[in-house]
């Protein structure tokens, strides 16, 4: 049997930028199993010791929240979750304290697929940059080239820049309001970056962020002949594939007909050629 429900120990909780929270959780089995682009379904109320809080509790918020791995430290047996506080769930999560117990399901979902050779070029917009840090670290451990193009609203709201520099051969930071390497969104930044750089070997673009940005990234990759994987987002229920609410419209490369697939199970990462960009 597979252990789906786990409880971790909260090591620290803090804010790295206004409204952008970061939580470090210790649970060695989860840290070992986590693949880039995968996520956990988090119970936003602290768990009672040794049991799933949900089975005995009616506390709000009712549903778990899907949050992807931002960083993983296998040696320490910890992982980092980063999230924007944007509603009741993430607000409750940001109020956890060191020593609280966090109940979660996972790791869940089909994550990014690292290429065998060449360069992993991660393109993130806003909170979409979070899972890319874990991705680039894993790519570097495999001996692949790494580059990061990250877009933020403003330099004040830019986070994790040093962390991205640490795991990337090259970084290119963009801001809608100027003040960083490029002015504009991450899709436009990618175009400028590729025009000025020749990354080593074949380029695989891996992207996460707002839908219009990812559409621009996927379009550019199609024109320039780069492989592209996109991490989609859809409101989720269970995260385990049983409720069918997180329907993503994709076009099977074999069958060609648009169909709904589960963002939580077949996704969240899809080949950009499969995605129906509407």
């Amino acid at each position: 049997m597979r252990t789906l429900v786990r409880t971790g120990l909260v090591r620290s909780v803090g804010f790295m930028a206004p409204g952008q929270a970061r939580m470090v959780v210790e649970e060695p089995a989860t840290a070992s199993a986590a693949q880039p682009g995968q996520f956990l379904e988090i119970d936003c109320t602290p768990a009672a010791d040794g049991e799933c809080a949900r089975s005995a509790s009616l506390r709000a918020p009712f549903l778990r929240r899907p949050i992807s791995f931002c960083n993983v430290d296998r040696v320490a047996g910890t992982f980092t979750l980063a999230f924007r506080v944007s509603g009741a769930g993430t607000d409750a999560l940001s109020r956890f304290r060191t020593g609280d117990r966090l109940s979660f399901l996972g790791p869940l979902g089909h994550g990014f697929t690292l290429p065998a050779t060449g360069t992993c070029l991660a393109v993130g917009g806003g909170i979409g940059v979070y899972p890319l840090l874990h991705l680039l670290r894993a790519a570097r451990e495999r001996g692949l080239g790494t580059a990061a193009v990250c877009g933020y609203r403003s330099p004040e709201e830019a986070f994790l820049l040093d962390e991205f520099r640490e795991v990337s051969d090259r970084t290119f930071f963009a801001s809608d309001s100027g003040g960083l390497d490029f002015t504009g969104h991450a899709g436009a930044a990618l175009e400028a970056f590729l025009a000025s750089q020749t990354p080593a070997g074949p380029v695989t673009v891996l992207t996460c962020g707002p839908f219009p940005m990812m559409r621009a990234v996927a379009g550019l990759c199609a024109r320039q002949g780069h492989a592209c994987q996109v991490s989609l987002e859809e409101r989720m229920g269970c995260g385990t594939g049983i409720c069918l609410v997180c329907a993503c419209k994709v076009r099977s490369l074999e069958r060609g007909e648009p169909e709904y697939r589960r963002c939580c199970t077949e996704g969240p990462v899809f080949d950009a050629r499969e995605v129906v960009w509407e």
Partner: protein
Amino acid sequence: MSTTPDLTVRIGAVVLKNPVIAASGTFGFGREMADVFDLSQLGGICSKGVTPEPRVGNPPPRVAETASGMLNSVGLQNPGLERFVSEELPFMKSLGTVVIANIAGNTVEDYQAMCRRLDATDVDAIELNLSCPNVKEGCMAFGSTPTGVAGLVRAVRPMTRKPLWVKLTPNTGDIRETSIAAEASGADAVSLVNTLLGMAIDIRTRRPVLRNNTGGLSGPAIKPVALRMVHEAYQAVGIPIVGMGGILTGEDAIEFLLAGATAVQVGTANLVNPLACQDIMDAMFRYAKEIGLERIADLTGALRIW
């Protein structure tokens, strides 16, 4: 003298190991949970709603969180009856528990044809879904009035010897009348209740959160309503009642038995706790042992009304 409580219950001819059934639409066809816990422990598994032809379902967003619950508007996404029979049903039957096929259609003829087809399979029971609020035609349109329920069940009854459970909607005038109509037309049991029709609104966009505008409310938010309906129906019909609506814990399940249910279905709880059915079965067993109950079936309708 301490005895081991007997958890067995009977829904007509169907014998369940215990009263806990995984509810339709919250457990797929059992595949996703088959390596999470031992599904042979379950009283039963009810399939995702199956329609004559495959259905892609409604556009997203299909879910909105609510206070103590959620709205969904999946819209019966399923592979269709033929693939259910050839691929999903054999898998479900291999799990070692009772398998109930939940079926939904647009027309009386849809339900008739599906029952005829399922009659030739080894499914243990058929649950007629007359209560899905998320599709344009059929379904809840049949279940919301006594004449609709009676007409459909009467037309379907001769098509199969399989036990027929009729899943009714709370979106009706009087659950007693639709339950009585089901019983009088040949149903073997009623499943009470499906989701309550509801809505959520985003005040920034001024649009409904659900792309379908409305959806079905489930979870603990509806438990008091569901309990009251099971209690009312129990006083009105003689056939067994399968109770559901917001069951999260063993205590919740016991409440449904006391109100008049013979078995329960656990739905939304599976979404937040994949081990919900197991936890509920364990808690019911502990409760029965604690109070020295010999048979869990003795709890059905044992409510001491004021």
